[in-house]
């Protein structure tokens, strides 16, 4: 049986360390070495202070759901409908678009606390995803 491939990341050169950290299940984001601002997607300079110096730092993996949608139409073979997507505000600042795994909230998903997990797609690709943070509720 054919396995639908997970859509590949768009090839951004500054993102390579991000995807490497995902593969190692040890998510790291780029952080400005001067003002401390986290950057996602990664980039060549700091939009806040213009610094060209950056480090890669492990994030807490904690965040809050900003919004969510349910696809009722299949656009990508790896994601047959119905398929949900969430926007998470990481505690470090950036917004990540991802998916919620495990139990779903009743009613509105907005403001639910979530924590990072890693899931392996049928084709072997590892993705950072989230699950409800039951410890927080």
């Amino acid at each position, binding site marked *: 049986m054919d396995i639908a491939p997970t859509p590949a990341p*768009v090839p951004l050169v500054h993102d390579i360390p991000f995807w490497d950290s995902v593969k190692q299940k040890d998510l790291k984001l780029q952080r400005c070495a001067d003002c401390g601002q986290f950057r996602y997607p990664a980039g060549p300079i700091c939009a806040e202070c213009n610094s060209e110096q950056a480090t890669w730092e492990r994030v807490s993996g904690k965040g809050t759901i*900003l*919004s969510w949608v349910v696809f*009722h*139409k299949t656009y990508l073979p790896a994601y047959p409908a119905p398929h949900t*997507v969430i*926007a998470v505000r990481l505690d470090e600042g950036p917004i990540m*678009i991802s*998916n919620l795994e495990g139990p779903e909230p009743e009613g509105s998903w907005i403001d639910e606390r979530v924590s990072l997990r890693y899931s392996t797609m049928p084709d072997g690709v590892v*993705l950072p995803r989230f699950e409800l943070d039951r410890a927080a509720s």
Partner: protein
Amino acid sequence: MARTPRATAIIGIGQTDWSGDWRRVRNGEKPADSVGYAAQAFQDALRDSGIPKSDIDGLIVGPTTAYERMGEVLGLNVRWGGQADAVQAILQAQMAIESGYAKVIALVYGNDQRSAGTQYGGPSAMGGQSFLSYVYHSPWGMTSQGALYALTLRRYQHERGLSEADMGQVAVAQRAWATMNDAAIQRKPITVDDYLQSRYVCEPLHVFDYCLVNDGGVALIIADAEYAERMRPDPVYILGTGRSDLNTGATSLEPRLTDYYLPAQQQAGTASYEMAGIGPDDMDVMLAYDSFSVHVPLALEGYGYCDVGGVAQFLTEKGIGPGGALPVNTHGGHLSESYMQGWNHQLEAVRQLRGEAGSRQIPGAQTVHYTSDVAGKCMSVIYGR
């Protein structure tokens, strides 16, 4: 140098037969390619203007056709030209004319998106790489422009209290206008119940919240005011323009999810109001770019037609459909008339101001406001007689 109201005016408008194009394409025909649709619309606009083609010294083509090929097909060797989307083309024409680079500019747009099977979502989403937010999150299955607006709407509904039935009023109003427009592709009236019972594409967006995808063309001729007044008795003037963008956090959707583009809309709106010397209370017709219905409530708040957070009440108590306090997208917009990527709205502005809008005409319309909010670029254009 300050921008001058009434320095430029539209003197010609043209289009293809959108509903006919729609029927032919559904029957499996391929009546034209994008250049062909644009050329047909140009011929129509040139006839409407009554000017000789040799007076045209500027050409702006839509992003869906190649500039050089378009100029070759139309036989236009101009001293100023370029490629731009609808609202940027208007602003560029205004700038070029005001600064003396051209006197009479043809703006032409053609699109065979339906017959060519253009994808606005999925692995080959059109133009996605140039708007990183359209493709960046595809590993998680986030694709399609509609899904971005669905994500925005869900949070907006939560924060500002816009119910699904409130939201349905946008599509219902625009369809009601379209029933009075022979050029509109979808003319069957719908109710809020029809809306609520219709299928979701990307929840919370229903199928009626999505623009049509169809083939067709649009053209405009914009000239400096002195020439415009010499050539025809009813030029439609550009009274005011404004632009402001939000780019910080664009890929991860920050301006859409937390600001709903509001600060940029307010700045663009204010700039255009100051230039025109009028404000939202003075507008006879409001036309909002509406690839998805979500644009409309955001624009009504952002451009000052109602209080921030007050759009649900505005839609219900004032109304944007026929008989409502503020006529919005009187041609049916992208949801019901035709998805000409903002170009068809400019034609409706001209028709309303010339008094040529048939049974949907707003009596004595003197001012029309066009707003566009795409990928963080907020723009405001005020037209008047």
